[in-house]
C-alpha cells in the first residue's frame, strides 16, 4: 500500500489538473472522462497490466474468499467436474451465520488468545535481541563482518529447512538437544510433546528466525544516527544508558516502528513455523489462526471452505484494525508514517 500511494497521488494530481483545465465550461463529467481517456490512453495502458494482474491474483481470490465466508460451502457441495462425473455447486448463502459461530464459539477466541500471546512474545523478543545485537555490531570490534554474516545466517537458509532442522533437534528421544542435556545429567525435556514446552519451543524457533531481519534493519537505523550527537552527549557527561535512552532510541524510531509493524503482521500469520514444527499440536496447543484456517480447508474432512474463509476474513480484519490503530497512535505522537 505504502508503495502504491505516491504514484497514485501523482497520477491523480496530473490527471485532475489537465482535465480541469480543458473541460472548463465545456460541460458534463462524462465527456470529461471520455476526453481524459482519449488524452491519457497511454497512461491507462501502462497501468492496465498491473491492474489486471493484481485483480486476477489478489482481487479475485479475495472477493471469492469473502463470498464463500457467507455461504455453507464445503467439499461435498462445491462444483466439481471429474471425467464422467459432473457435479454442480449446491451450497447456499447463509448470511452472517459463520461469523456468528466463530465469534461466539470458544474455538476462535481461544485460538486468537494464543495467537496474540505468540505474536507479542515473538515480536518483543526479536526486537530486544535484534536491538542488542545491532548495538554490539555497531561498534568497531575485531571480526565484525564475520559476526554479521553468521548472524544473518538463519535468514539466508530457507525457512522450511531450518524449521525441519529444529524439529530434529527438538525430538524428545533422538534429538541432539536432549542428548546434550542427558550428558549434563538433566532429564529429557518434552520439547514438542508437552503443551507448555511446545509453546516455548515454537516461540524460540520463530525468534531465532526473526532476529536477523530485526538486526539488519536496526543496524541500518543505528548507522544513520550522526556520531556527533554521541560525542556531544559524552561531553555533557551523559552515561551510556542515557545516551542509549535519549539518542539511540529516538534516532531509531522511524525504523523501529516500521519493522515492528511488519514483524507483527508476519508473525501473526507465521504459518511454516507452527505447521512444520508441531502442526498445531500437541492437541491444539500451538494452533494459531492461520494454521487453524488451513486445517479447516485442507485437513478436516469434509473440507470446510466456508469456515476457513471466515477465519481468513477475520484475520484480515484484525490486522487491518491493528494497522489503523497503530498508525493513529504514531500520528498522535507526531510521527509521519
Amino acid at each position, binding site marked *: 500500500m505504502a508503495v502504491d500511494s505516491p504514484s497514485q497521488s501523482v497520477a491523480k494530481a496530473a490527471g485532475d489538473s489537465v482535465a480541469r483545465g480543458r473541460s472548463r465550461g465545456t460541460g458534463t463529467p462524462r465527456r470529461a472522462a471520455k476526453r481524459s481517456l482519449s488524452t491519457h490512453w497511454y497512461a491507462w495502458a*501502462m497501468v492496465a497490466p498491473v491492474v489486471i494482474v493484481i485483480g486476477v491474483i489478489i482481487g479475485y481470490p479475495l472477493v471469492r474468499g469473502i463470498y464463500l465466508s457467507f455461504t455453507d460451502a464445503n467439499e*461435498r457441495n462445491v462444483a466439481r467436474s*471429474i471425467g464422467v462425473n459432473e457435479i454442480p455447486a449446491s451450497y447456499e448463502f447463509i448470511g452472517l451465520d459463520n461469523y456468528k459461530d466463530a465469534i461466539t464459539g470458544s474455538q476462535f477466541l481461544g485460538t486468537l488468545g494464543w495467537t496474540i500471546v505468540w505474536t507479542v512474545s515473538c515480536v518483543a523478543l526479536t526486537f530486544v535481541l535484534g536491538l542488542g545485537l545491532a548495538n554490539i555490531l555497531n561498534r568497531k570490534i575485531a571480526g565484525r563482518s564475520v559476526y554479521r554474516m553468521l548472524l544473518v545466517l538463519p535468514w539466508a537458509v530457507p525457512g522450511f529447512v531450518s524449521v525441519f532442522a529444529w524439529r530434529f533437534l527438538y*525430538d524428545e528421544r533422538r534429538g541432539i538437544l536432549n542428548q546434550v542435556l542427558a550428558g549434563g545429567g538433566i532429564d529429557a525435556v518434552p520439547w514438542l*510433546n508437552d*503443551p507448555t514446552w511446545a509453546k516455548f519451543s515454537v516461540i524460540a524457533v520463530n525468534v531465532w528466525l526473526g532476529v536477523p531481519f530485526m538486526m539488519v534493519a536496526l543496524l541500518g537505523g543505528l548507522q544513520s544516527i550522526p556520531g556527533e550527537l554521541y560525542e556531544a552527549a559524552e561531553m555533557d557527561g551523559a552515561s551510556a544508558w542515557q545516551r542509549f535512552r535519549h539518542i539511540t532510541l529516538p534516532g531509531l524510531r522511524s525504523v523501529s516502528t516500521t519493522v515492528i509493524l511488519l514483524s507483527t503482521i508476519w508473525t501473526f500469520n507465521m504459518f511454516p513455523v507452527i505447521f512444520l514444527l508441531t502442526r498445531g499440536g500437541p492437541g491444539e496447543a500451538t494452533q494459531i489462526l492461520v494454521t487453524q484456517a488451513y486445517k479447516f480447508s485442507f485437513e478436516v474432512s469434509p*473440507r470446510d471452505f466456508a469456515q476457513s474463509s471466515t477465519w481468513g476474513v477475520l484475520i484480515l480484519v484484525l490486522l487491518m484494525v491493528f494497522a489503523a490503530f497503530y498508525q493513529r497512535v504514531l500520528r498522535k505522537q507526531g510521527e509521519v508514517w
Partner: protein
Amino acid sequence: MRRGIAATTLVAALGVTLAACGGSDSGSNGGSKGSGELSGTVTWWDTSTVGSEDKVFKQVAEDFTKKHPKVTVKYVNVPFGEAQNKFKNAAQSGSGAPDVIRSEVAWTPDFASLGYLAPLDGTSALKDSDDFLKQATASTKFNGKTYAVPQVIDSMGIFYNKKIFKDAGVQVPKTIDELKSVSAKIKQKTGKTGLYLRGDDPYWFLSFLYGEGGDMVDAENKTVTIDDAKGVKALATVKDLVDSKAAITDATNGWDNMQAAFKDGKVAMMINGPWAVTDTYAGKEFADKANLGIAPVPAGSGGQGAPQGGHNLAVYAGSKNLEASYAFTEYMTSVETQTRISKELSLLPTRQSVYIKPDVATNEMISFFKPVVDKAVERPWIPEGGSLFEPIKVEYTKVLTGQTTPEAGAKAIGDSYRKLLKDWK
C-alpha cells in the same frame, strides 16, 4: 515517435504475457485400446512404507509393462499421511491426479461419495470378485456400486522383542492389566520401557477402544457411541499407560520414533500391523528374524478387539487412460501379484485362493494375522468414515498430554461427530 515505439513495445509485451498465461493445457496422455492393445501412461500413487515396501511395489508395478509393453507405468510413492489430502487436492482441481490410487479402506467411500472415483462394475478391473474376502470388499462399495478393488487387508497385533522378554523373564501380556505388570517388570529387570504407544495417530487408539467394548459410532442405529462410558474408559486406559510409565508416546513424528525405538531395542513392545513387518526386520535387533514375536492385542475389560484395515486400488474418474488403469488395477490385485507381494512383504492378500499357496500358507506373519483379521472389528463404511479420525486425533493427544480429561475429551469428540453426522443421536 518515441511514444509510439514505447506503446508498440508495450502492446507486444502484453501479447507475450497473455500468450504465456494461456495455453499449456497439459497434453493428454491419450492412449486407449484402439487396436485392442493398451497403450499410454498409468500413474499410480502408492502409499506403502518408504524404504522397505516401496521398492517391492515399484518393481511389481513396473512389471505390468511386461504384459502390456506399450503402457508406461509411472510409480509415485506418496507418504501415507499426506496421500488423502494430496489426492483430494489433485482430484478436485482436475490436474496432477494419478490414474490409480492406493486408497485406504476408510478413504474409499469418502472419495467415491465426492465423485472422484470411477465405478468399476462391469470393467476389466474386477475379475473373479467372488474370490475376495467378504470383509475386504465391504469397504469398496458405495451406494450399491463398486469403486475399488481390495489390494491388501490388515489388522493389528502386539509386536514384541523376544530377547527383552526372555531377559526380563516375562510372558506376552494378554490383558491391559498384564501389560502394565509386564512393563513394570521389564523396566525393573532391563531398564527398558514396556510399550511404545503411538500418540499422534488415532488409528492406534482403536484397539483400546474396541478392547473396552466401545466403538466410534453405531451406524445401524445412527448413534454416536464414542462418548459413552466405554469410550471414556478407553481414553482413561491409554492415559494411565503413559502416566504409569508402562508406555512412552510422542505428540509428533510418532511413526519414526516408534519404529526407531522398537528396532533399536529401546522398547519391548509396540502395537502395529503387517505393514510394519518388513521395516521392523531391517532393525538391528531383528537381524535374526526369529527375535520378532507377535501376539494379539491385549484385551480390555470388554474383550479383545483390533481394527480391520487395509488398502484398495481405485481408479480416478478423470483419468485420461481408463482402460489401461482398469487393467493395471486388475493386475495389481490378481492372484499372481498378491502371491508375490505376500511372499516378499508378508502383507495379507485379499483373495482366498492366495492363502492356500504354499509360500503364503507357511509365512509366519500371515498365518498369525489371518485369524486376527477374521475376528477384527469392522469400521462402518460410511462416507464420513474417513472424517471420524481427525476429532479423535486432537482429543486423544490432548488427553495423553494432560490438556483435558478423558470425560471432556470423549465429549468433545462426540460433539464434533454429531456436527458431522446430521441427525445422528
